[in-house]
């Protein structure tokens, strides 16, 4: 996209699109840095075959790591809300599913496995997969909080039956979020089409070319993005 200044031979070509604020990037990486030890220590405490590791002094250390990481993990979204409430609400609104996400689900196998770009309808600032990841992590954060805090501070004070249910929901949230994290990690680090996602989470910006190709609805707006996609599909059908 080129913009020329009137009456001058000077032109500006847009190269970089801001995608994440510094606080968002710091929160993301700190969340990753706390999620990993939380998941590892959580699994040591959860899986029966790892139970020997959870005994004695080592077990106490794992519990301590789990709790310290949990405090940071729990506080980060609250800090984000305090400093950038408008951005947080904007992101939550963008994570909410809508009927257009069905198009992503239908197109995902051909797009991600076969590299057929025309199979994927235009996506917004977050594609439906990123939205799913964001939503799962948000729900998991909430479930970890409302189950983890009573498990930590309420042991012996809350009824055993309720305690068991808290453990079940805490473990379910762990299983779902770890699965989501592994998919997210693969797509961000290893998938050839998605590498720029990692770059934008590192530097806060994404290239105009990548945004136009992978987030066309965010780049061109819904109407023009659909026109471009329809043209791309017609072209692919002819070949």
């Amino acid at each position, binding site marked *: 996209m080129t913009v020329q200044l009137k009456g001058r031979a000077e032109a500006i070509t847009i190269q970089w*699109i801001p995608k994440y604020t510094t606080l968002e990037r710091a929160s993301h990486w700190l969340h990753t840095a706390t999620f990993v030890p939380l998941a590892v220590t959580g699994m040591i405490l959860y899986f029966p075959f790892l139970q020997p590791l959870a005994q004695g002094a080592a077990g106490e250390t794992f519990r301590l790591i789990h709790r310290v990481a949990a405090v940071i993990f729990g506080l980060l979204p609250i800090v984000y809300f305090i400093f950038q409430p408008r951005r947080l609400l904007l992101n939550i609104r963008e994570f909410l599913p809508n009927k257009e996400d069905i198009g992503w689900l239908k197109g995902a196998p051909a797009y991600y496995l076969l590299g057929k770009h025309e199979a994927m309808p235009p996506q917004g600032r977050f594609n439906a997969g990123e939205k799913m990841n964001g939503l799962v992590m948000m729900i998991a954060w909430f479930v970890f909080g409302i189950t983890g805090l009573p498990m930590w501070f309420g042991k012996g004070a809350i009824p055993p039956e309720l305690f068991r249910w808290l453990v079940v929901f805490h473990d379910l949230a762990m299983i779902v979020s770890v699965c989501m994290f592994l998919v997210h990690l693969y797509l961000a680090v290893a998938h050839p089409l998605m590498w720029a996602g990692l770059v934008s989470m590192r530097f806060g910006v994404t290239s105009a070319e990548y945004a136009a190709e992978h987030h066309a609805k*965010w780049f061109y707006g*819904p109407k023009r993005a659909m026109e471009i996609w329809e043209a791309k599909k017609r072209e692919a059908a002819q070949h």
Partner: protein
Amino acid sequence: MAKILVVDDDPDFVNLTRRILRGKGYEVVTAASGQQALQVMRKEKPDLVLLDIMMSYILDGLDVSREMAQDPELKDVPVIMVTSLTGARAQMTLPSDEYIPVDEWIHKPIDPDGLLARVEKALKKT
């Protein structure tokens, strides 16, 4: 005094700009998206538009300036792009189909004196 339309989806930026411009006696009207900006312009034609690029979508502001250029009523209204998008400056060689002429290009965060100087310069051209 000249009427300036400030178009931006960031209410903090709109409030700050409004205060700077009103301090110099300009009349300020505002809009929060490209679509809203065109509605306001067609209702009460401004003398100058301060236009953010990235609003509802990334090229929202550029689509507004493109539409203004095609509208006989609005094509002479000067446009100052105010944006956080970063780009490479180069000498124009071949205009592409995406070629959009604008009067000025200012990066955020803005410097109040710099903004007022650009506004005065753009208004003098009309």
